[in-house]
């Protein structure tokens, strides 16, 4: 995909929709995001336990949102590395809902198909599929499906652990299904037609 936005930003050009990127992300975030209040102090990037594995610190991502760099933001691995530990959230001096913004960016990246590594989106999707089938999470199904696809080479080293979990009765072989699966699916199907815009 062409790096249109980047060139445009370098050339000092911004389009209307680029400038509205920050607003769009803010609107799509649960709660009141306070994203526009960021003062670029770096509390989030300093707090993050996984910052060393991120393309950009959260702070940089917010600056890029302001600059309208849609593609780069959505391609960034940062939201996927976020472990939702909320250290940044409680420390942020401007009360930005950073972790929730990360969820929003993940959703936008999936919609725009802009993520670089599919491991995380696939895991989320597999998890969601399990929940939508059984109403509960099914760890064995989830783990085996996910590992087979993404970490086949790690399976041998995983085996003792998996074996241990199963023999110690911590990983049931059969999934549990809730009784009113249909009700849950009706709710989720209706929910999928709705979007948070205002």
């Amino acid at each position, binding site marked *: 995909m062409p790096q249109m936005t980047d060139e445009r930003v370098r050339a000092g050009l911004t389009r209307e929709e680029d400038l509205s990127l920050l607003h769009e992300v803010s609107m799509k975030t*649960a*709660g*009141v995001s306070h994203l526009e209040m960021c003062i670029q102090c770096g509390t989030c990037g300093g707090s993050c*336990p*996984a910052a*060393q*594995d991120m393309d950009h610190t959260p702070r940089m991502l917010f600056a890029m949102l302001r600059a309208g760099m849609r593609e780069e933001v959505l391609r960034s691995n940062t939201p*996927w*590395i976020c*472990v*939702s*530990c*909320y*250290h940044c*959230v*409680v420390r942020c001096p401007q009360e930005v809902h950073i972790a*929730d913004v990360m*969820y929003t960016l*993940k*959703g936008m990246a*999936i919609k725009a198909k802009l993520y670089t590594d599919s*491991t*995380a989106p696939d*895991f*989320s*999707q597999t*998890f*969601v599929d399990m*929940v939508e089938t059984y*109403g*509960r*999470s099914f*760890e064995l199904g989830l*783990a085996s499906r996910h590992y087979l696809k*993404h970490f086949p080479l790690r399976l041998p*080293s*995983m085996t003792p*652990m998996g074996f*241990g*979990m199963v023999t*110690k009765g*911590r*990983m*049931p072989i059969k999934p*549990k299904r*809730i*009784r*009113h699966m249909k*009700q*849950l699916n*009706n*709710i*989720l*199907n*209706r*929910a999928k037609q*709705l*979007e*948070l815009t*205002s």
Partner: protein
Amino acid sequence: MNKYLFYPGCSMESSAKAYMQSMNAILEPLDLQMEEIEDWNCCGATEYLGINLIPAYSLIARNLALATKQMNGTRTVTAPCSACYLNLAKADYYMQERPSLGAKVNEALAAGGLQYTPGTLEIRHLIDILVYDIGLETIRSKVSRPLTGLRVAPYMGCMLPRPDYKHRWSDHEHPTELDDLLRALGVEVIDYPLTTNCCGGHMTQIGPETAFELIRRLVADADERGAHLMATVCPMCQMNLDAYQGEMNHYFGTDYHMPILFFTQLMGLAFGREPGDLGIGAELVSSRNALANIGVEVPVTQEPAAPRKKDEGLPMPRRWTKHEGKEAVK
């Protein structure tokens, strides 16, 4: 009899069976009753929120809506899992903070004949109930086998004390609830600065190298400070630190052996229950050696009040207390 509505969460019937078993073992002595929400569903963990917002919140809210149907005499929902606790609390809070979210979620719930008014329920974690409703005094009074001599790293994890929408905890970074509870059991609680650091969350599934590093930090620090074991309050933390400890050792070439137990298992032991009744032994990193420390019969004593050594050098400021914090905010 103190009755609460109960949202177990998926792990309690699988990977965290020991948590469920040990919790059940301490309910009776503490005169607690947990009424399970009927036909509850998964809270979506940290996965659903990243895929699709309204369905994610609707998924969570279905549980809240179901719980309101069982509200006879109590409006408190207890969750033993930190991730479930956070998701339930978050949905309740954001549906109120962002009314348009609340309206959309209710529109979706209506398709299943359900409805939830945010603020109706009070969402609390198991340890919150134990420390603030039951109280440390009562807990202390039920201790028949003080865990004297057991050195424990208190591990609160992240999703319990943060973001703390309803200001339930003494602190976001260094809360004292778990420390206090463990001390009431006679445990020697070590100073553990990483108590609210992250266990890696879902990164064990999607970016194991990242997760291994987070696990290493927690285990290494507890080990270095001489902990016999770590006590957790969350199935995900237990799973990551326990089940992935071997892989982490393999990845870094280290040889840590840090057992991870649920705090309820330690409570059960202190209340005189046998390890087998508490799911002890289900952990992958065995706690056998660590618990040998309490195999020794120790006479019931008061909480150890070690005489403080007189400080040399410059005096330290007084420790911060929650009470003081409220004063200062005024």
